[in-house]
């Protein structure tokens, strides 16, 4: 099974993945807020987050995770958009966005664009 491997240690925060994603999914249009991948800056690190399923119930539990990149609010790196997280929806229509791997077989544009090695398509078996 193929997976996108994310390595925040390598991410330079150039956000070209965001631009490429929006170009790929909406014809001729560049807008990071239409992208299904976003890069957030936390504690001086750049952390790419790929859009997952929309959920209409926000979490009750708020937690902070202790990572090698310092303490990070789980909400920031959570892949879902939800009523409390106005990320991963189209700014004009409010339509919720979700990564589709750029089709089958997977051919993610963000991975192809990434030049830092932060995004990688790998074969994954548990």
């Amino acid at each position, binding site marked *: 099974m193929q997976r996108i491997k994310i390595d925040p240690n390598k991410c330079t925060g*150039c956000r070209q993945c965001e631009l490429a994603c929006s170009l790929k999914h909406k014809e001729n249009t560049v807008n990071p807020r239409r992208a299904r991948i976003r890069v957030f800056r936390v504690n001086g690190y750049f952390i790419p987050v790929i859009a997952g399923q929309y959920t209409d119930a926000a979490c009750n539990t708020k937690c902070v995770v202790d990572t090698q990149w310092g303490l990070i609010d789980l909400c920031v790196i959570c892949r879902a958009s939800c009523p409390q997280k106005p990320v991963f929806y189209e700014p004009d229509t409010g339509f919720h966005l979700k990564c589709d791997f750029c089709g089958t077989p997977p051919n993610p544009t963000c991975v192809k664009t990434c030049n830092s090695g932060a995004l990688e398509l790998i074969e994954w078996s548990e």
Partner: protein
Amino acid sequence: MEVWKGQFARIDLTHKSFKIDTLPESLLKVYLGGRGLGVKLYFDEVNPEIDPLDENNKIVIAAGALCGTGASGASMASVVTKSPLTNTICCGRIRGYFGTELKFAGFDAVIIEGKAEHPVIIFISHQRISIKPALEYGQQVTSKTEKMIKEELNDRWKALESFILSVGPAGENKANLATLVSDGLLLDGGAGIGAIFGAKNLKAIVISGSQDVTVNQGEKCLQSIFTLKNKFNTSPYTKEYLPNIGNGFLLDICLDKKTLPANNFKSSAQKIPNLDGDGIKNFTQRRRACFSCPIGCIRFSLEKQRMLYLDYESMAGFGYLCGIKTIDKIAELRYLCTELGLDVLNTASTIACAMELSEEGILKDVSLSFGSEDIEKIIKQIGKNKGFGAEIAKGGAHLAKALNRPDRFMGVKNSAIPPFEPRKLWGFGLHLATSNSGAYHLNGFTIIEELLGIHQVVEPFKYQDKPALVKQIQDTMAVLDALGYCVYILLALKLNNILPFYKFCFNTEVNIQELLNLGERIWNLERIFNIKAGIDYNDDVLPKRFTQEALEGNVCPLDQMLSVYYQERGWDKWGKPKEDILNRLGLKDAKDKDRS
């Protein structure tokens, strides 16, 4: 019109009002954006003889034409105004995310005019502009300012997606060496702009946008991004040196070729242990990039949530020109400059000038010598613009002139010479003398040909070849600035490599000569502005040290090159653009303006 937003905002600080106006496509096609559009808008609105700190002076911030299109390496916005340091037109390049966000907010440019009574912050988002009081921000360092603004937004998601351009205490106190900071990154060039922000009582601009930028052939743009990525990965400069060392890789090359000056350009530098490419590589564990840049050359180390940047300017400036020998100290000094909002190059060079004057016994106010560790104190004084700091804050040229030794400041038009040796790099010397914004390297980075020989072989000591080379590179840089490209893309690409992307974006073919003409037009317009401002051929000079004091048998033959350069540009012997060149570039009106 899609790539351009076709709009600009005029923000009046005096009346706390704003107005959104359209930009005609005919204007955008000729001046593109960024430095081109900025210079044109500024030229049309401001009397060149204005005192830069006067409230009638304006600031134009313009996003590069290709900002926000995904063009690899194009993210720069330009801040254009008349600098109090040089009294010439000047252009500061905003790195990071600010320029593209301006586009996403729906504007190609912003014009700021008037003067607020109390410190204010401008918030721009989705066509909405508000001006809010910012009294509690007074004298705050830039990192604290950014933090406070993000807290004030009171919305973590908004805070993550807002980008800030702010001025530090140095600018608030109207130090001529002050510049701006965006997202922790100092502007490239544009020393003095900070003081204008201070004079206008403008503390920061916060921007956030969610509009689309539309290109013509998106699929092909995407293919072009992939092609260029491969291209960047074939050049050792963009594949290895810049990502691993940042622009500090130039230190090794300059040390090797003996073009790195030391002690206020008195001699060429001997290598100081650790102050080289490897030193930077070891000190900085991480790197970051500007928007849509596949290179990612900004090296930093994270220390207690502080981002300590190191680059060529700080290493060569504080390290070799001022003689600071430890890399930790240099990183701290650079951090201090970012916090106070001071231009690194000009600050270092001005202190180096003070050090030489003090060693010679001419400067008696302070006791300084090369390598003095207490320059931290002086930088803080510059930030406050008080005491001895006030003397230095006006710039090195002022300091040296006040002591009757103007030749001791290594600068042109009051702006410090970047640490590359003009006696060995003659083309660079010629560029510095003729640069429209005072000595500065990124608007004529001849280093890529003269030192690195990326695209052409240049004979080092053949002065006849230099004027044409300098003109070509100056025009190239002008058009790159207008498009929003960073100069370092030239380490892997030629100008013709960006033509396909240009075509897919704008749906118009363009050739190199046309692009260079656009650059030439910008350069000439800046020149006309400067002439009207009273800066003329008398100011196209280098400090005596480079033209009279030989270094290893070499001086910079500026006079021989200058007359040929004027001819090459179609200027008369007084360095004024002739009628036919103005007609060719369509600048006749500009020159005649105000004549009546």
